[in-house]
C-alpha cells in the first residue's frame, strides 16, 4: 500500500497527464509542427536514442558540475555573510544586482571571455544562475542562530569552530537543502541556455537547436521531455540526500 502510494500515484498522474495531452492534440487536429503529441515522442526518442544518451550525459554532468561549484561558492560566501554583519551588508547589493541580470545576456559575454571552452562556459552559466539561493539560505540560517545556542557552548569553553561544527552547520542544513532544490532546476536552465544560445555541437540544448533547424518538431518536444526527466531525477537525488542528512527537520517522520 505504502509502495503503491509512493510510486503508483505519481506515475498514474503522469499517465493521465499524457492521455489528456494526447486527447487535446487529437481533438483539435493539430499537426505535429503546432503541437507534438506524446505518441510522436516515442519514435523521436528511438530514432535519436544514441544522441539522447550522449548529449543527455553532456548536459547532466555539466549541470552537476555547475551545481557543485554553486554549492562550494554559495556555502563559503553564505558562511562569511552569516558570521559578519558588515560583510553581509557590504556584498548583499552586489549579489542581488548580479542575480537580477538575465543570464541570457551573460551567455555571449562568457562565450567571448573563454572562446572555445564550451564545457567551462556551460558550467559557469549553470553556476551563476544557481548559487544565489544557496548563498542566501546559508547566510540567513547562520545569522538567525539564537544567541542562547552560542552562549551554552561558549560558557563551556567551546571554540568558534566547535560551535560551527556542532550547531551552526547542522542547524542550517534544512535551509540549505530547501535552497538546493531550487538551485537544481535553475542549474538545468543555465546549462541549456548556454547550449542553445551558443551552439557548439554538444548537449541536449544543441539537440533542441538541431530539431529547430531541421524543423523536426517532435524532436524538440522530445528534448524538453528528456530535460524534464533529468530534472526530476536530480531533484529526487537531492530529496534522498536531504532525508539522510536533514531528516530530523521533517516533523511527519516518526
Amino acid at each position, binding site marked *: 500500500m505504502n509502495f503503491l502510494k509512493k510510486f503508483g500515484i505519481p506515475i498514474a498522474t503522469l499517465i493521465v497527464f499524457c492521455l489528456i495531452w494526447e486527447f487535446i492534440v487529437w481533438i483539435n487536429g493539430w499537426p505535429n509542427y503546432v503541437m507534438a503529441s506524446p505518441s510522436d515522442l516515442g519514435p523521436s526518442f528511438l530514432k535519436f536514442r544514441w544522441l539522447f544518451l550522449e548529449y543527455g550525459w553532456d548536459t547532466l554532468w555539466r549541470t552537476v558540475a555547475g551545481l557543485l561549484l554553486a554549492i562550494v561558492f554559495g556555502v563559503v560566501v553564505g558562511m562569511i555573510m552569516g558570521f559578519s554583519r558588515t560583510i553581509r551588508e557590504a556584498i548583499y547589493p552586489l549579489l542581488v544586482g548580479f542575480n537580477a541580470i538575465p543570464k541570457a545576456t551573460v551567455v555571449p559575454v562568457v562565450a567571448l571571455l573563454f572562446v572555445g571552452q564550451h564545457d567551462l562556459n556551460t558550467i559557469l552559466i549553470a553556476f551563476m544562475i544557481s548559487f544565489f539561493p544557496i548563498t542566501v539560505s546559508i547566510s540567513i540560517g547562520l545569522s538567525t542562530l539564537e544567541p542562547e545556542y552560542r*552562549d*551554552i557552548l561558549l*560558557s*563551556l*569553553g567551546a571554540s568558534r569552530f566547535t560551535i560551527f561544527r*556542532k*550547531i551552526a552547520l*547542522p542547524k542550517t542544513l534544512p535551509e540549505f537543502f530547501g535552497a538546493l532544490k531550487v538551485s537544481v532546476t535553475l542549474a538545468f536552465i543555465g546549462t541549456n541556455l548556454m547550449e542553445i544560445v551558443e551552439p557548439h555541437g554538444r548537449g541536449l540544448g544543441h539537440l533542441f537547436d538541431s530539431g529547430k533547424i531541421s524543423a523536426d518538431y517532435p524532436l524538440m518536444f522530445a528534448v524538453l521531455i528528456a530535460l524534464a526527466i533529468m530534472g526530476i531525477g536530480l531533484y529526487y537525488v537531492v530529496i534522498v540526500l536531504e532525508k539522510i542528512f536533514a531528516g530530523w*527537520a521533517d516533523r511527519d517522520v516518526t
Partner: protein
Amino acid sequence: MSSKALIEIKNVKHAYQTDAGPLPVLDGLNVEVAKGDFTAVVGPSGCGKSTLTRLIAGLLFPNEGKVFLQGKRVTSPRNIVGMAFQNPVLLEWRSILDNVRLPLEIVPNELSRKQIDDRGYELLAMVGLEGFEDKRPSELSGGMRQRASLCRALAHRPEVLILDEPFAALDAFTREDLWQIMHELRHQEAFTCLLITHDLRESVFLADQVVVLSDRPAKTQYTLDVPFGRDRDLDDLYTPEATEILRDLRYQIQVAQKRVDEEIQEIDK
C-alpha cells in the same frame, strides 16, 4: 561568609554601547552566593538580570567591579558553569540523550562513552524522562524539553547552575512540576544555583535567599532570607507566613520600580 562565597559580585557597573550613547544596566551591584546555596534574583523587567548571568558565565566582562567564582576572578568562560534559559534551545537533530551529553563532548573529561551515556540516563531518570532518551526534541512537550535542558546544564556536574527564567514560558501546572523537580535535583546533585526569575512565588519556593534588584541601572535593592528549610511543599506557599514574605517582596519590587515614592508624593499633596 564572603571568603566562602562561591559566587561573588562586587560593586559591578556595566553599560552597553548603543547608538544613543552608553546605556547603563548595572550600577554598583553586590551579590554573594555561598557554596551549595540557591539564590533567586528578582527585579523589574529590563533591569539587567540577564546581564548578570552572562557576567558569571564569563561571556561578558563588567566595565567596573569584579566577579569571582570559587575565589578566582572571572576572566574567561569556565566550564564549572551550567546554563539553562527560557528557550530550552535543544539541538533538534539530536536525540534527547545526545542533547544531554553535549557538555561532556566539550568539557575535557576522562569518562568513557558508556559512562557518558550512563550520566545522561541517570539525569533523565531524575527528572522523569526515562523512556524518552531516543526521542527527538520536537516529539516532547514544552515542560519535557525544559527538563531535558536542565539535565544538559547539569551533565558535566557544574559547580554553578545558572538559570535564566527557565520556567517563564510554561503553563502554571507544568511550572509547579518543574519547581518540585528542581528540589529533587538539589537533593541528588551538589550545585550552587543562581536563578533569574519574574515569579515571586517561584523565588520563595525554590531559593534560600532572594535578591531584589532595583530598576535599571540595577543595584541590590533588598535581600531576603527565606525562612523555610530544604524540604518544601507547594502548600507552604499558601501559609500566612509565605503570604507575608510575598507581600514584603512585592512591596520591595514596587520600591525598585519607584512606584511607591510616587504614591507617597501623591498622598503628601
